[in-house]
């Protein structure tokens, strides 16, 4: 039975990792072929950093992920504090709206934002789809995720602490930064990280809200997929995969050490 369980898990993990391994292996393939091994090379890794379209897309992906998760975290945290203070019907109504971007299919979010932007551009003909609309769309769907990760922390917080701070003469701003924010910090960090990964991984919303000439990695990969993906992209994804794994490992390791300290 035990061997059977191991075998099953092994099979499932093979299923999950085979495509990824193949992708990484072929990033070292000497020829452009995706299926025939012709010899080892590191050439694609060198070429990667000489390809302006890939570098530009990488730059867009990372800056949009950083900026959108930053703005979404600020906006979402402030909104969560406000929503938490609301009661009854008003709270339920705001939450229903906040849940829409999470529940709505990506493709509907994408086309509805595209319609919004093009509708607004009718009044401002000088503007067009591009980096700014891409960034705004990412903030739009990320804010809800931040709110949803901060709210539970606020709910579990003792509201008297903040009032005590005010009674002791703290201004509301000081009270927020010295009392509320430290309490809800884990939720804020989770929200920011979630927003960052959602933004990096997004294709559908970006696809509809970007303009010609502004690509992120997902869109670049999509447009390449038809012609056959260049091994340079394999090389880039192998690198990104390693970076993400390292980051995840580091975050996990620091979390575990914190838990241990708390237990002691």
């Amino acid at each position, binding site marked *: 039975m035990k061997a059977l369980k191991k075998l099953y898990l092994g099979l499932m993990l093979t299923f999950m990792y085979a495509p990824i391994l*193949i992708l990484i292996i072929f990033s070292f393939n000497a020829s452009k072929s995706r299926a025939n091994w012709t010899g080892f090379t590191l050439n694609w890794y060198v070429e990667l950093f000489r390809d302006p379209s890939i570098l530009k897309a990488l730059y867009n992906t990372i800056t949009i992920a950083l900026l959108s998760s930053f703005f979404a975290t600020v906006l979402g945290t402030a*909104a969560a504090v406000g929503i938490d*203070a609301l009661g009854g019907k008003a709270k339920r109504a705001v939450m229903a709206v906040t849940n829409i971007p999470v*529940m709505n299919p990506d*493709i509907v979010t994408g086309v509805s934002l595209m319609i*919004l932007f093009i509708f607004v551009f009718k009044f401002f003909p000088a503007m067009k789809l591009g980096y700014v609309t891409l960034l705004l769309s990412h903030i*739009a769907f990320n804010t809800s*995720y931040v709110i949803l990760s901060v709210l539970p922390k606020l709910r579990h917080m003792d509201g008297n602490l903040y009032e005590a701070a005010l009674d002791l003469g703290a201004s509301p701003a000081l009270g927020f930064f010295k009392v509320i924010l430290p309490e809800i910090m884990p939720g804020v960090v989770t929200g920011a990280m979630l927003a960052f990964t959602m933004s990096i*991984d997004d294709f559908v919303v970006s696809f509809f809200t970007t303009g010609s000439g502004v690509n992120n990695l997902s869109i670049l990969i999509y447009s390449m997929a038809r012609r056959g993906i260049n091994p340079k992209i394999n090389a880039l994804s192998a690198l990104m995969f390693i970076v993400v794994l390292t980051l995840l490992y580091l975050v996990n390791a620091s979390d575990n050490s914190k838990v241990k300290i708390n237990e002691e």
Partner: protein
Amino acid sequence: MLPYLLWALLFIIVPILLIIYYSLCVETDSGLVFSLQNYSRVFQPIYLRIMWRSVALAFMCTLFCLVMGYPVAYIMASKEYARKGFLLFLFLVPMWMNFLLRTYSWLTILERNGIINSVLSVFGLPNIDLLYNEEAVILGMIYNFLPFMILPIYTVLKKMDQSVIEAAQDLGADSRTVFLRVTVPLSMPGVISGVTMVFMPAVTTFIVSDLLGGAQFMLIGNLIEQQFLKIRDWNFGSAVSVILMTLIIASVAIFSMVDKDSEGGALF
């Protein structure tokens, strides 16, 4: 608070109102006029077939994910694997690889001179067409969405009170009865979140069908993309989007009602 309300109004409510507005209009020479024509078009057999196909494929994908994912969650949550947290981590890591690349990679495995066919020809077997059919699309969906099924079921199983199982055993139930009468019913909240989280993205995807099903392969997602970006009939595209949105939000609402008393089973 006020900035967020304005933001939500502009970026959540107005876009949806706009899409509803467009869906209720048709383009004429004198501009947009009100019409229900877009909605009646959705019910033409050709579009009904596309919708039926999307639902059927998403259903198959969900079923396979459940059958494949439940045992994974069950084994990982069992006592002998309790201390191996990294296993769950291993199942989640692939999600951090770009979705398109993960799907694309199946192309290299399945295509005509891809890896499976290369292996077949080594053994002198004839090549087979594995790509550009419904099976390839379902496979791609399963591959991408399987972790969404494993995680919520695992979370629920892990939190389950072990003494309930021991009680059932003490009362003379054999392991099969314990599983069917205790474990399965108690894991239902996880199964429900898993099914929701697999079915929703599967029914709305257009990338998996586009890459693995070929350019002619149409699901609801492909239909919306085609209407907006290729044919540029925004009004009909909006009508399809409104219908898809209503379906999804209604089913999420129903599932969350069923699922009300479970906490933390979902991914987010």
